[in-house]
């Protein structure tokens, strides 16, 4: 086991990693930018090194400074947390070169999954279902034939595109010719290329992801799924485990395929395989995140495992103490991401916290680096706390989250607590009826 680990991150995840290290008896090195000098991850680390000014590119993304900090403190391994350098294959390589263990997957795995198209192709080859689609369609006839195969509705998408331009949803063969033409014209006008392709369109998708863990001895396990459908502009807002849409059979089936695919690419350490689910509960592989995730806590709540400890243990070469697919998910867990932002406008709200009270009691977990009189700097992510609850079932978890939100007091800055209260009070949410469009109903401008 490592004697000393450097934590290349800040905020709640730096504290989270620090907790795991302390419980394993490993000494910790914190790194921090100048405005983070009085952060709790600095306060609780055994050693701390200032690595640069506020700007991330000169501090938390500063590879040379972080490696130097590891070298001058004699750290043996680096935990990257999430964000910053966590999915940077070059950083993982530099660590290897400098004989520092990168606590995460091999650089090749990070690189493969970083190329979303390549990842989708590879995972399709390895047996995971992906969203059916075409290459660039040359003619109307070809498009009609392909759409028939995929099944309506289909989406016409600009090959060079983005931002919704050059995109059309086609409900039937009748509509296709005209909409194909419009999309091509728009693509030409917007991107200088009229190339379009077709993809299956899911009107009300859910976002489901599987947590996996792999050791260096070929063992890969999955720890069930998380439901991350409640999103705003592709940012997760609230997560649950298990999903109301995934029963034991589907979990076993897809989990088994995930394990096989990851064994094939020699994956190791923690990772998350993300899927889009359609109305018939088909799961289409979307991408893989090669790191620990913000929402890992809901999986910890229902499995009783400490994922960060396990990350460190497998990085040190230990065998996973878990048998594949034997994990029982107990009860139901929900996480709310509490962000320093205005609950109406969603603009970030940095500043000094003047009053702070975190909820406690049965089944409540709070991961935060904030405290009364602490300052939320304007330079980084707005996530200031993860509020996680566990209940014997989803109903109890929802009741518990509602009372916990009510008892979470943050004064001095605005937070997303009111937004979460609205979500939890929503009858459709309570009934488990929602898609990734759900949050649009709370947005003044209808942007979900």
């Amino acid at each position: 086991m490592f004697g000393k680990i450097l934590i290349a991150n800040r905020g709640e995840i730096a504290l989270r990693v620090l907790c795991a290290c302390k419980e394993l008896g490993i000494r910790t090195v914190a790194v921090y930018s100048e405005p983070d000098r009085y952060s709790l991850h600095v306060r609780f680390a055994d050693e701390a090194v200032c690595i640069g000014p506020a700007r991330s590119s000169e501090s938390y993304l500063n590879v040379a400074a972080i490696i130097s900090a590891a070298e001058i403190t004699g750290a043996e391994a680096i935990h990257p947390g999430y964000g910053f350098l966590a999915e940077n294959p070059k950083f993982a390589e530099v660590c290897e070169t400098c004989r520092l263990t990168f606590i995460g997957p091999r650089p090749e795995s990070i690189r493969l999954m970083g190329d979303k198209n390549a990842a989708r192709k590879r995972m399709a080859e390895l047996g995971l279902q992906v969203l059916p689609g075409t290459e660039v369609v040359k003619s109307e006839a070809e498009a009609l034939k392909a759409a028939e195969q995929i099944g309506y509705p289909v989406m016409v998408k600009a090959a060079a595109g983005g931002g919704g331009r050059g995109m059309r949803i086609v409900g039937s063969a009748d509509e296709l010719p005209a909409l194909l033409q419009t999309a091509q014209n728009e693509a030409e006008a917007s991107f200088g290329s009229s190339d379009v392709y077709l993809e299956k369109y899911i009107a009300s998708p859910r976002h489901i992801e599987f947590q996996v863990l792999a050791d260096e001895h070929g063992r890969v396990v999955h720890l069930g799924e998380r439901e991350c459908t409640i999103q705003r502009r592709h940012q997760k807002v609230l997560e649950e485990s298990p999903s109301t849409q995934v029963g034991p059979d589907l979990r076993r089936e897809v989990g088994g395929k995930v394990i096989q695919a990851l064994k094939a690419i020699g994956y190791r350490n923690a990772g998350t395989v993300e899927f889009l689910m359609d109305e018939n509960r088909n799961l289409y592989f979307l991408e893989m995140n090669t790191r620990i995730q913000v929402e890992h806590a809901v999986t910890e709540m229902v499995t009783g495992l400490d994922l960060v400890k396990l990350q460190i243990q497998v990085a040190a070469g230990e065998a996973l103490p878990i048998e594949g697919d034997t994990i029982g998910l107990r009860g139901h867990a929900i996480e709310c991401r509490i962000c320093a932002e205005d609950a109406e406008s969603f603009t970030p709200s940095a500043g000094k916290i003047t009053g702070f009270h975190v909820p406690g009691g049965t089944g409540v977990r709070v991961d935060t680096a904030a405290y009364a009189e602490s300052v939320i700097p304007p330079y980084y992510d707005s996530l200031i706390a993860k509020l996680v609850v566990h209940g014997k079932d989803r109903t109890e978890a929802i009741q518990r989250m509602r009372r916990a939100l009510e008892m979470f007091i943050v004064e001095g800055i605005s937070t997303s607590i009111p937004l979460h209260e609205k979500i939890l009070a929503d009858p459709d949410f309570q009934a488990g009826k929602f898609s990734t469009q759900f949050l649009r109903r709370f947005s003044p401008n209808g942007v979900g």
Partner: protein
Amino acid sequence: MSGKKISRSNEGTERSWDLKDIQQLIDLLIQREVAEFEMEKDGMRIRILRRASGGTVLSMPTDAAQSIPAPSNNHLHATPAQADAPAASEPASEEPLEDHHVIKSPIVGTFYASPAPDAPPFVDLGDDVDVGQVLCIVEAMKLMNEIESEVAGQIVRIHVENGQPVEYGQPLFTVKPSEPK
């Protein structure tokens, strides 16, 4: 490191503070643009906080606002170069004189006073240096980074020792600038 108090044990008996003293103190703080002042002495304690014209207090200017202190067992924080650590042990020399220039480490790494193990140091205490003159090396990731003087003047303090690890922003040298010509 908490060292947030200036406790000068027991000098003399009790000349107690009156309003006039406080007024003078406040004026001094205004004049020198001090945002926060705290003092504890012989059971007396005084704390003065000034707020800049505005209100939004994101200021951690002088640290005193923090009630949860930085780690005390922090080896890097404990190096003599740290701004707040030595204040207790040698307050006189630490307080940089207004006209002096402190050269800080631009990177994290290891401080070397000389170009090679057997070579003499780049500069010694009392040496005169020119703008651009190499003062030391900070090694990071096997790269030797030469640190140059930003001002011309005399080296009046060397904050770190040969071979010592330094963090970003850590003071390396204090230079007393030569008279402007």
